[in-house]
């Protein structure tokens, strides 16, 4: 059962690996990871999502996969397919909990061990993209994920912020982390960029304004766009729906599509 160390093994068939990061919590990493996966699927790609947020695993619910069981095969765990066509597969600690309210109260070393297993012991198969959703911060989970994925590099990163200065403050540190760990930042996404009142169409900057563009300017990283607040998007994620398919009229749709387009054209590809 010991994982064979140097074997390309379970990530041999993965063409692009993209981490979704933010120094700040609650900016929409899981939202962007999910919507990006859905958009890539609509572009005909096979996508895997690796959810390494062990304390707050949000992805299963966002893809209506809560409560699914994880099976074993010869190469390890079989990731959960969230759709009939098997075009999106997912691995999350959420699937390993006995109850959805069970808290994963682990210190760093134990988290690191599981993340290594998620990378090397999951039979990902042939994927165009592996999107890695992370918790906020620059700590154990991030280091473990980068270390475990690095042999299969190069690794790309999408960095998410909200417009507020408080968010920019944390995300600058995340960009330092990317630089120090050799992650190529594909771009910055500004989420929660304003809310258009459904009653009178006045746009309010609920979480301040300007942070994403400022971050891009400060750091020289491409700015991929601003995703506005849309309760339909929030609701869609709560219910595990396919927002990209169901809400093309949403104000959030153009930004999400353009992010996907950027990833399709820019994400660093592995040399075969």
């Amino acid at each position, binding site marked *: 059962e010991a994982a064979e160390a140097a074997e390309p093994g379970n990530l041999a068939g993965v063409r692009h690996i993209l981490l979704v990061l933010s*120094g*700040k*919590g*609650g*900016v929409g990493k*899981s939202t962007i990871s999910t919507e990006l996966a859905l958009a890539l699927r609509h572009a005909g790609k096979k996508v895997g999502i690796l959810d390494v947020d*062990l*304390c*707050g695993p*949000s992805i299963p*619910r*966002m893809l209506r996969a809560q409560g699914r069981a994880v099976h074993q095969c010869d190469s390890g765990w079989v990731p959960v397919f969230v759709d009939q066509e098997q075009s999106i597969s997912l691995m999350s600690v959420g699937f390993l909990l006995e109850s*959805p*309210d*069970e*808290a*994963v*109260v*682990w*210190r*760093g*070393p*134990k*988290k*690191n061990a599981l993340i290594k297993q998620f990378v090397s012991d999951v039979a990902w198969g042939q994927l165009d993209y592996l999107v890695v959703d992370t*918790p*906020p*911060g*620059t*700590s*154990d989970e991030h*280091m473990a994920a980068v270390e475990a994925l690095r042999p299969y590099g190069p690794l790309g990163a999408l960095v998410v912020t*909200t417009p*507020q*200065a*408080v968010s920019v*403050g*944390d995300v*600058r*540190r*995340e*960009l*330092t982390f990317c630089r*120090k760990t050799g992650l190529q930042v594909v771009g910055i996404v500004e989420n929660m960029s304003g*809310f258009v*009142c459904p*009653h*009178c169409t*006045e746009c*309010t*900057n*609920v*979480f*301040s304004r300007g942070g994403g563009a400022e971050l891009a300017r400060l750091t020289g990283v491409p700015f991929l766009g601003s995703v506005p607040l849309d*309760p339909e998007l*929030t*609701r869609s*994620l*709560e*219910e595990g729906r396919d927002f990209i398919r169901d809400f093309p009229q949403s104000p959030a749709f153009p930004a999400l599509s353009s992010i996907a387009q950027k990833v399709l054209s820019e994400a660093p590809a592995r040399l075969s």
Partner: protein
Amino acid sequence: MEEVPQGCPGTGSAQAGRGASCQGCPNQRLCASGAGAAPDPAIEEIKEKMKTVKHKILVLSGKGGVGKSTFSAHLAHGLAEDENTQVALLDIDICGPSIPKIMGLEGEQACALGHVFRTDTVWACSTVLSPPVYLSASIDWATLLDSGTQFVEDNLGVMSVGFLLSSPDDAVIWRGPKKNGMIKQFLRDVDWGELDYLIVDTPPGTSDEHLSAVQYLSAARLDGAVIITTPQEVSLQDVRKEINFCHKVKVPIIGVVENMSVFVCPKCKKESQIFPPTTGGAEVMCQDLKIPLLGKVPLDPHIGKSCDKGQSFLTDAPASAAALAYRSIIQRIQEFCGHHQPKEEHLVGS
């Protein structure tokens, strides 16, 4: 609190750290050195330190971005409005320390915050890091304290790893054990003095920082935890885990605050639910789990602006619905703490 490997010989046994099942256990080295047999002396030291602190409150959430730091900062501001109440705010979010900015203290290095940091201990401080981590520069406190810069307010002190970083781009890329060490130092080596309230702001999750805070304060009697959420199920899902964490580590729960409850358009004044409570919001969760709902705070764009400017929203927009909600919640927290007065002999006499 931590999960032990199957077949763990027991931290006090002669086989501690040496057995076959000890391989890979995070405590292996500690046990093998014999340290596992005795509790961490820091716990007693912190208990002594905390004797001059009447009330200790943890602000938690399983979920990120729900407003823990915003709430902690305004709880501190609100309590400190009474100039006879001594308040301190400790930010143990090591990777994403937001408190300095929200409190208008960005750019202040720790030396500028006067007597809160008057300590004889010389800190060793790390700057920009990558694993493995080496301690580099030292801070000579005695020299730095002479700078005489202003405090937030005379009765409100703040500590955060943010003050120890020399540039806004510095990333604290630390693993658990090093974060734990910093938290221990914050609790034990900062001269907190006599405080009515110590508020501890935490990062999201149920991991090292939370375990350490609870562990190091275990002998010092935490009043309890305030748990922050937003209305959506994505947040509640994580918050239920946090509530379970509190039960597991026996931290009393003061109550839950629902942030970003409802948005009132500044133009037409009509309400919208930006974060719809698809499963009933905090209200239903609190009913189910029989935990007090301390209050609901509407989503007011002024809150974010005040935080970005480092100002107290309570003084920027005192008549707003959000400020009123905050004040009512703060009052309920004070009442909770008032009902749980520590016995007289735990307080240091004058």
